[in-house]
């Protein structure tokens, strides 16, 4: 069946089963590969996107649940002031190592700063603990969020 979704301000129509995860619609149908597959069970946060500004794990978000909501991905997060500041802080502090989880990290961080403009370390740990980084960039992630929050 076909679904009309709005991703990064553009409308798309896709013809997939309704239970298809948004992740695979983004990656394989729309070719937007910035959003990453990590676990498929909402355990690692690599696939984090925003739906109407809320962070969601796109691997566990079926396409039929998205409706007319606005989906924002890493490809356009830099268009917001917060997203841009985060990307710059990530560059300034050279946060990424392999980089694979960082799309999800930045999306979660952007959602945190939207509600908590000046997060404490504890705020960051609470908001970011759903995002796994196997390279262990956590202390730079903390520092970069603080830097972007200034």
């Amino acid at each position, binding site marked *: 069946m076909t679904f009309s979704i709005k991703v990064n301000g553009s409308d798309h129509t896709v013809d997939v089963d309704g239970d298809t995860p948004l992740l695979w619609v983004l990656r394989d*149908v729309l070719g937007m*590969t910035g959003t*990453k597959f*990590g676990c498929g069970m909402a355990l*690692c946060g690599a696939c984090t996107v925003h739906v109407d500004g809320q962070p969601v794990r796109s691997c566990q978000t079926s396409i039929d649940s998205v409706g007319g909501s606005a989906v924002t991905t890493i490809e356009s997060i830099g268009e917001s002031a917060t997203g841009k500041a985060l990307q710059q802080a990530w*560059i300034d502090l050279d946060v990424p190592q*392999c980089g694979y989880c960082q799309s999800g990290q930045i999306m979660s961080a952007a959602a945190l700063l939207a509600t908590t403009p000046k997060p404490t370390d504890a705020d960051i*740990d609470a908001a970011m603990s759903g995002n796994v980084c*196997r390279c262990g960039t956590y202390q730079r992630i903390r520092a970069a969020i603080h830097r972007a929050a200034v």
Partner: protein
Amino acid sequence: MQRKGTLSRVDRRNFLKLSGGLVVALTLPSSKWTAEAQASANFAPNGFIRIDNQGFVTMVMPMAEMGQGIHTAHSMLLAEELEVGLDKVRLELSPPDDALYGNPLLGSQTTGGSTSIRGFWTPLRQAGAIARTLLIEAAARQWNVDPKTCHALNGLVLDGTGSRQLAYGALVDAAAALPAPAAKDLTLKDPKDFRIIGTPQKRLDTPPKVNGTASFGIDVKVPGMKIAAISISPVLGGKPKSADEKAALAVKGVRQVVLTDQAVAVVADHMGAAKKGLEAAAIVWEDGANSTVNSVDIVRQLEEASKTPGSVARSEGDVEAALANASRRLDAVYQLPFLAHAAMEPMNCTVHVRKDACDIWVGTQVPTMAQRTAAQITGLPAQAVNIHNHIIGGGFGRRLEIDGIAHAVKVAQQVEGPVKVIWSREEDIQHDMYRPYYYDRLSAGLDRDGKPVAWTHRVSGSSVMARYFPPAFKNGVDPDGVEGAAEPPYAFPAIHVEFKQVEPPAVPTAWWRGVGPTHNVFVVESFIDELAAAAKADAVAYRKSLLGHNPRALGVLTTAAEKAGWGKAMPARQGMGVSVQFAFGTYMAMVAEVAVGNDGSLKIGRLVCAVDCGLQVNPDTIAAQIEGGSLFGLTAALHGAITLKDGRIEQSNFDTYIPLRIDEAPVVETHVIKSAAAPGGMGEAGTAVVFPAVTNAIFAATGKRIRTLPINTDLLKNS
């Protein structure tokens, strides 16, 4: 239009494949340098550098980037001697070619063992210097002056008077026609003149990693490509018997069901459909011989085997006599579990097999091995297999293996057009190739003053080397299996170290970040801590008393202890632990601060690391590798264990194979000791050093000695 200089056959192939548009390759006479690389004499710089008419420099990266920062560090080596800023540098991944891009320390195009800086430290600087020499020569000829009066700076050649200058882009054609100087005639820059090496440089790969444009293997898009989900026999070594093809094909978007010798793949328009189709396929497996294999038996087998002698890796002094005469004897058994790699980017590989060629898009640490593997499976000549390498979303040793590529090629052989085979996280964990389970027996004798007079260590476990690189497995000794054990940093009057190869049934074993030292440094640094405790000595002072002959080890230990405030009073159930290691050419010491709750829960306060890795290339990357490497090790110390039941791996995803998360992550402090020694490896040292620092801190906090990993917090309850 492409303009070429003196391209040899090999160079032309690379050149045509790699470059597009108006690009002029600065080509230099090539030689098969791997044979000579051991002496780091001759090499083919055209394999590493191209400069276009605009002066942009393309640096071809021989090693895989998987987060360790090697593309930036290698670019720094080239740029330093070439005298260009890193802002002028473009990166390109090398094609598979052992002759042009082989790692001099490993003899093949392999990224591993923390060898990329050590192996390429001289050849890449020489490559830069050859290019610089030729550009200066070209300018000098144009000006009709002695090249010795000219110098290069920031992409320009300047004459002796400072009145004339030419940009590299304007010189490349003339330079390409000149004979290259021999490596032995080059003068490399004195380290005191380094402008780039040793200064913190921003990583070249960061910008695309923060906006979603970085392309990992899993992100590749090939026209007409299908996506496949794969299921490998849950019982290790089993085979598919049947699959419900009809049910799978009934799923919207599913195109094909493929059975190979070991797996079933469902090919679809997208991964959502492929996964759904794979479930619908209700695969029936033939379990084969391994359906009764379990961890308890594997450990029992190791325990039994470890009671009898292994092959001698090192023996000095009369250990038996020294033990017999010691005033005190200590014996201990240490055990380390199987571990999965669990890199964030799940295993994946995209393959297009045709009658006369095969294209493979993947992130691999071993592109030439990948090429040979695909050639073997398809029956094509190796040169008909094109490997398009990508940055890797976490390697940790996993991408040193070609099993994922082999699976994908076998699927692709049955598919029209390109197919991207993606493993689920469950497949990734349950069909990893695992860090071996190790069972170590140690004994030590102390004299009346508590000083060690004898030290014995028998390592029992699988030999990865015996499978991976048999020539290095000699006389029953796996040099990796005893690395960090045979040559501990301490002086012992008598030492005897053995390796006992015991291969577990069914479980494939492989390299894991930190390799031998990750296992042995934990064991050695724990047992030396036991000796210190038995001698009622301070753990740092005791180590120092055995390191008089080893000034660099002493240096890092002293610094780490000082910076950590070693010896300060700690509250109840809090403690500091220390570890010292020499591995990968790098000296490192770490102090961990740990608080143990009454319920046994652990809070790792901070990790203070001192490192002496010789000359630094990118100091910020050194810090990053210590931060990340030690958290990778800490994850395993706290949570890491792969176990088997009925021939199946019991863990499956991040809910059962637990990763460290940000709320558990301590701050890691790095203190670098300045040194003019040859550079050491940095990718793995932090992983190895952390385990005993943490467990020794637990001992300091609780008096409980952790001899089995992962740490069982039930044993740490305050009862």
